[in-house]
């Protein structure tokens, strides 16, 4: 299937629904969304104003779905959306938007601009105007099973290491397990600590869990690039495995957009509600902790802070859980300014970190995170998204900051009381 302008414009027409029509109708060009956007804030360039990134989609809405717009189009008074324009907009829609959702929180007329960018990407990818790196990642996710090209044997190798290290058997393909555990490519390649931590915590808590060889990858390049058909195919692997194993709950790993893909978009992509629950790992850990099933001993003495991943907190509603867990294992936990639902993005969400062209801009946008971290005075940064983690590690290195980044699950596992 080749991408054409016509397909892109049709996709634009298809994604415009009542909410989007109300959003475009309500915009008064006040520009407040620019103040919420990290790319505008750190560069000062007005072209990064969130609502401006939607200009081609707005014109399609006006020309197709309003009487005046249609009249204008018939009379040849309106400017049609062209390939050249979409080429110009590609970096605005992909490189300078992490789908972080801050603009949607501040828009005074209530426009969910992030929702619109997500929808606009459907037309951008259908017309061939998606970044090459993201196309390649999506192709790998479809053909190989993972955007980073990882296959099950790589997971098996990691399972071997974890079993050798912990002495705990990692369950695979267990029928009727309560939980199906997923991972992100990033965790498989860069952060094996996650699987090790999960094994240890779940052993202590007596959790009946499993991995599945046909559904170990939680990430979904399809929703980042904006290709719902591909996103559906990727999410359906997890749904099929969860139904096959008859699990009660699928656990989304420490990854932001995987949670959005699986928890919020998944049922809509599949066209039916799930027969199982989806929880983020922090929700599961908090539930276990409240039930008294996780016993920890001692507290981390290092001053530390927590970075709320956008898709976990602002777009996902998991805000209190990490604070409960940190309260248990951290002696000197300090909140960053704007922490919680108004936290600033690491700069690499929404596929930006997979897009090498966006790297200079991403590092520029990281300055806000740098200031946030510096204001707390800590040298240990906890988060719950492997992508945020790698993006922040790169940013910290770029700005020569001596700050260690850790996943919350692995921090918790460090203070676990074991062998009782």
């Amino acid at each position, binding site marked *: 299937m080749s991408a054409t302008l016509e397909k892109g414009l049709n996709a634009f027409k298809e994604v415009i629904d009542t909410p989007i029509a109300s959003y475009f109708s309500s915009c008064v060009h006040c520009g407040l969304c620019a*103040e919420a956007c990290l790319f505008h804030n750190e560069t000062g360039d007005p072209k990064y104003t969130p609502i401006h990134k939607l200009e081609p989609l707005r014109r399609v809405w006006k020309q197709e779905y309003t009487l005046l717009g249609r009249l204008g189009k018939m009379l040849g008074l309106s400017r049609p959306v062209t390939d050249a324009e979409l080429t110009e907009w590609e970096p605005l829609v992909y490189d300078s938007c992490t789908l972080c959702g801050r603009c949607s929180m501040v828009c005074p*007329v209530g426009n969910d601009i992030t929702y619109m960018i997500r929808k606009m990407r459907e037309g951008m990818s259908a017309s061939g105007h998606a970044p090459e790196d993201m196309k390649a990642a999506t192709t790998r996710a479809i053909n190989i099973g993972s955007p980073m090209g990882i296959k099950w044997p790589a997971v098996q190798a990691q399972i071997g290491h974890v079993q050798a290290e912990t002495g705990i058997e990692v369950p695979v393909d267990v029928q009727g397990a309560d939980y199906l555990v997923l991972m992100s490519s990033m965790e498989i390649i860069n952060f094996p600590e996650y699987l090790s931590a999960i094994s240890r915590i779940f052993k202590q808590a007596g959790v009946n869990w499993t991995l599945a060889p046909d559904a170990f990858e939680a990430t979904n390049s399809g929703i980042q690039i904006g290709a719902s058909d591909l996103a559906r195919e990727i999410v359906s692997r997890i749904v099929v495995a969860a139904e096959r194993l008859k699990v009660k709950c699928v656990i989304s790993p420490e990854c932001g957009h995987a949670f959005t893909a699986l928890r919020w978009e998944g049922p809509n992509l599949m066209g039916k509600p799930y027969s199982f629950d989806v929880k983020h790992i922090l929700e599961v850990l908090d539930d276990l902790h409240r039930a008294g099933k996780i016993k920890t001993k001692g507290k981390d003495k290092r001053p530390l802070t927590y970075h709320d991943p956008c898709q976990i907190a602002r777009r996902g509603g998991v805000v209190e859980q990490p604070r409960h867990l940190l309260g248990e294992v951290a002696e000197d936990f300090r909140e960053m300014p704007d922490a919680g639902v108004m936290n600033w993005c690491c700069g690499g969400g929404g596929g930006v970190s997979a897009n090498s062209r966006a790297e200079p801009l991403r590092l520029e946008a990281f300055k806000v995170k740098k200031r946030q971290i510096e204001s707390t005075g800590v040298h240990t940064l906890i988060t719950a998204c492997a992508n945020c983690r790698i993006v922040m590690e790169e940013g910290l290195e770029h700005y020569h900051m001596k700050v260690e980044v850790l996943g919350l699950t692995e921090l918790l596992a460090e203070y676990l009381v074991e062998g009782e």
Partner: protein
Amino acid sequence: MNHLDLLTFARGSALDLALIIFVAGVVLRLFEIFGLSRKPDLARPRTDSPGSGWRTMLTRSIPPQGMMKREPVTYIGGYVFHLGLFLAIFFFAPHIEFFRSLTGLTWPALPSALVDASVVAAIVALFVLLAHRLSNPVKRLLSTFGDYLAWAVTFLPLLTGYMAYHHLFVEYTLMLALHIFSVELLLVLLPFTKLFHTFSVFVSRWYNGDFFGRKGVAS
């Protein structure tokens, strides 16, 4: 046609026509929006948050933490303008009399001096916001002819109303006719410009509140 004839026309057939276009335009625009429909959200909401959309209709009027400091001109200018305009439209005694003649409903008026002050405040705010639109790089980039048109047709009723009330420059009957014409221009253009946010803001805020509410965030 003398001034009185003009006023009679403004109050009579011109007003009828303007009201018809206004009502038909608003209905059309709402049809354009709701006619598109949307797919039901099949993801199980985190918590049943009944009323999140309705609450957001109100709570979005309050700036999120830190935003007032970043954009005081937009927020304060916006508040002063909207409040001033609202008081002038709905709490000026002659306006209430007009609404009573139209709908039969009536309510207490504010003292004229207070309404007068709110009009002056709204006019000042409009000029501050216009200057900001022309000077702020973000607003300048976003602005189109429609923004300046919307500004002008909002400003004219305030200006003509103020001039009529104070008997400034132009003969009163003529000024009153001009005031009514300017309101009619506003009514005719409202559904077809960004001024339609007067209505659609409640729709967009509702959806925003509903989306975030389902995820357990915001109101």
